[in-house]
Structure formats: C-alpha cells, structure tokens
C-alpha cells in the first residue's frame, strides 16, 4: 500500500485517477481503518486529504454553508453559524461515534462510506444538502441522497471524490432535527435514523417538509408521503400520526443483529414523530 498526502484537490484527484489498483480517500479514517484492519478493504493507495487546507474550511455561501471534506465532527459542532441554521445536521453528525471519533470523523466521510445507517446523511438529505464531487472530468453537484448506490457502494466514478457539502440558506420559520434509535446511549450504529426539515409560514402552517430515513433500506432515502402528511398542517397530532404511518410504511428494513423488521418499521414512525416535533418547536421558536 502507498500513502500519499497531497496539498491540493487537483493533486488528490490525479493520484486517485492514476491508481490502477484500489484507491481510497482518507479523511477521518474512522471507517477506512476499521475496514483495512478487518481485511474488508485492502487498498493499494490511500490518499490523505487532510493536508489540503481548503477542505478544513466551513464557509458561508449564498446564505448557506459549505463544509469541507476534512472538517471533523467536533469542528462542525463548534461552529455557531451552522449549529443555528442546521441544528439537525449538526446533531446527526455529532452522533457519529465517541468523542474520540468526533475528533476525526467527517460528515463527508460519513456520506462517502455509503452506510444506510450513516447518522449525518438523513439529516443532510432532509436539509437538501448537495455534495460537490470533483474528478478527472471536472466538478459536479449531486444531492447527497444520490451519492450512495447501496450499502458500501457509491455512485462516484473512478478518480472522483467529494470535496465539500453545501447546506442551503435557512428560510425564516424553519428548522430541522435528527433522531436515531440505538440500544445504548452512545457508541452504537443507528437501528433507525430520521431527519426532518420543516418550513412554516407566518401563521404556523407547514409549507415545506423533507423527511429522510436511515437504516431501514439499502440507502438513506427521502419519504415524499411523509412530507405530504405535514405540508398544509400545523404539524399537530393528526399530522404527526399521518407522518408516523407514512414513515413506517415506507421503511423496508431487514432483520439483522441490530433489529428486527417489525421493530424498525414501528420505530421509524416513532422517531419521525419525535423528530418532527423537535423541528416544529425549533422552527416556531419554542425550543
């Protein structure tokens, strides 16, 4: 295996594109090193992108925020602007692993690992976040929910890497929330995850909603029926019941060591309801 630590995105992309064997990007390394240790991944080249200064930045752009691929969770959590605008995205990212993991793991890495249970991804998807993908053929912007092709598989082409994620501007009377279910209080992989992003009008009527679920299908996905259940309502109990039912219906989980189909379907609804309540209260300034 070769280890490279280039100082520009261009150099990183060249290295990735030129490698004839398996090349992997190293950001926080909290997934990659585990995969290497278990023999699940045996790269010929590892490209550490943390020497690329630009990728450590969180910058304001069009009223939103662009978050570099090398920004670890702990830095995102220390950024007041992002925390205020997108509390759900920040809490999703902060739920990834322990304090030690937070010192390393990045939101972009979480996205590119393509786990259906990735904690930051449902929140990002609900936020309408867009990943900036750079490769040998240039740069393109891709909605985050389209990065993963399936568990552990991405839609990125050879030589491509995600250099940043853009979180759009936050409208007035709007907020988001992310909740996951885990058996312990920390250190577990989500059994179900749910991100909810809501926009209200001045009268408290929900005018826009995006709901994304994690760990209940092969990929994180948006649930249009869930959004429909909320739009045009005050996000009251009846709307929340409809939301929960839509999420439970949309979930197509598997039985595995982390949970049963029955449990995950039910809890998808429970979490959606709870996350939507938090997002609503935040948007209405009561939380």
């Amino acid at each position, binding site marked *: 295996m070769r280890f490279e630590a280039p100082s520009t995105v261009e150099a990183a992309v060249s290295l990735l594109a030129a490698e004839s064997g398996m090349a992997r990007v190293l950001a926080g*390394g909290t997934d990659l090193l585990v995969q290497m240790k278990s023999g699940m991944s045996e790269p010929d080249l590892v490209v550490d992108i943390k020497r690329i200064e630009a990728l450590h930045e969180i910058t304001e752009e069009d009223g939103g925020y662009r978050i570099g691929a090398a920004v670890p969770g702990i830095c995102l959590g220390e950024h007041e602007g992002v925390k205020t605008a997108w509390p759900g995205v920040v809490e999703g990212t902060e739920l990834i692993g322990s304090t030690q993991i937070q010192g390393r793991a990045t939101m972009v890495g979480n996205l590119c690992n393509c786990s259906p249970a990735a904690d930051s991804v449902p929140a990002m998807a609900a936020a309408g976040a867009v990943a900036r993908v750079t490769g040998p053929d240039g740069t393109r912007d891709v909605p985050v929910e389209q990065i993963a092709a399936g568990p552990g598989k991405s839609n990125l082409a050879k030589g491509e890497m995600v250099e940043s994620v853009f979180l759009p501007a936050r409208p007035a009377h709007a907020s988001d929330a992310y909740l996951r279910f885990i058996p312990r209080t920390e250190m577990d992989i989500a059994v179900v995850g749910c991100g909810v992003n809501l926009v209200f009008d001045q009268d408290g009527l929900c005018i826009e909603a995006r709901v994304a679920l994690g760990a209940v299908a092969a990929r994180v996905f948006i649930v249009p029926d869930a959004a429909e259940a909320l739009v045009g309502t005050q996000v009251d109990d009846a709307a929340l019941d409809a939301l929960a039912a839509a999420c439970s219906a949309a979930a197509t989980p598997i039985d595995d060591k982390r949970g049963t189909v029955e449990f995950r379907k039910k809890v998808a609804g429970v979490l959606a309801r709870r996350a939507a309540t938090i997002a609503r209260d935040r948007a209405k300034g009561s939380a």
Partner: protein
Amino acid sequence: MSQIHVQTTINGDETEFLCDAEETLLDALRDKLGLTGAKEGCGTGDCGACSVTVDGRLVCSCLVLGAEAQGREITTIEGMANGDELHPLQQKFLDHAALQCGICTPGFLVAAKALLDHTPDPTETEVRYWLAGNLCRCTGYDKIIRAVMDTAAEMRGA
C-alpha cells in the same frame, strides 16, 4: 515497499520513526517508540484504551495511520505527569480507587484531561457522554466519574 519516515512531536519531544503505510499510530507508539501506555483493546475505535491527542484533539490512535503523524503534536499518557508530579486527574483516580485492573486507565485519563481542558466545569451527564467512548469493564464507571468531577472541582479551586 520502503517504509515511511515520519517526523513528529510526542509529549513535547521531537521524534522520528519509520513505519509501513498500513501501520497505525498506536502500533508505531507501542512497537517503534516503546510508548506502551496506550493500549489496544479493540483496534476499531470502540473502546478508547488507545486514546491520545493529535494537535490537541482527542482521538483513538488505533484509527490514525502512523504516517499521518508527520508534523503533528501528539500527547500520550506518558506525557501527562510532569516529572514526578502527577496531574490532578492521576492523583484523583488513585484517591477514588477509580481503577481496578487499570487497562482502561490511560485512555480514561487522556480523555478526561481533554474534557477538562475543554470544559472545566462539566456536569455529571457531560462527563458520562464525553467518556462514553472509553470502555471500562471493572468499575461500573461510578468511581471514575466521581474522580473526574472531583478533579474538575479541585482544579477550579472549588
């Protein structure tokens, strides 16, 4: 494949070592530099026994490549006491019997120091969540949490 030459600072000392590209910082510390205070309990970032700081950030050294240490500032448990003077956390761990077997202790101390550097007045809940990535199988955490809280109080002069 030749090895990578890494120049880094460990516990304030300029240090260099050779490592394979796949080699973790933990392996480099333990096998190349004789710094065996950091322990490998899992190798997957789930137990925190290998906790160190890199440029002031708390990390699991089993999830850092040795090559990544180039030019960084690393601190380990071996750098915690000042000569023969223990850090207050080390003393409080002894006073409170906050260790039984002691294998997790270096990781807890490094992590707890990072907490107190960051949050001098943590609540019990903050201490518990900050240390959730450090597994202890002996103590049930009770005396560890008390030792950290007591250290924080003492260091604040309370």
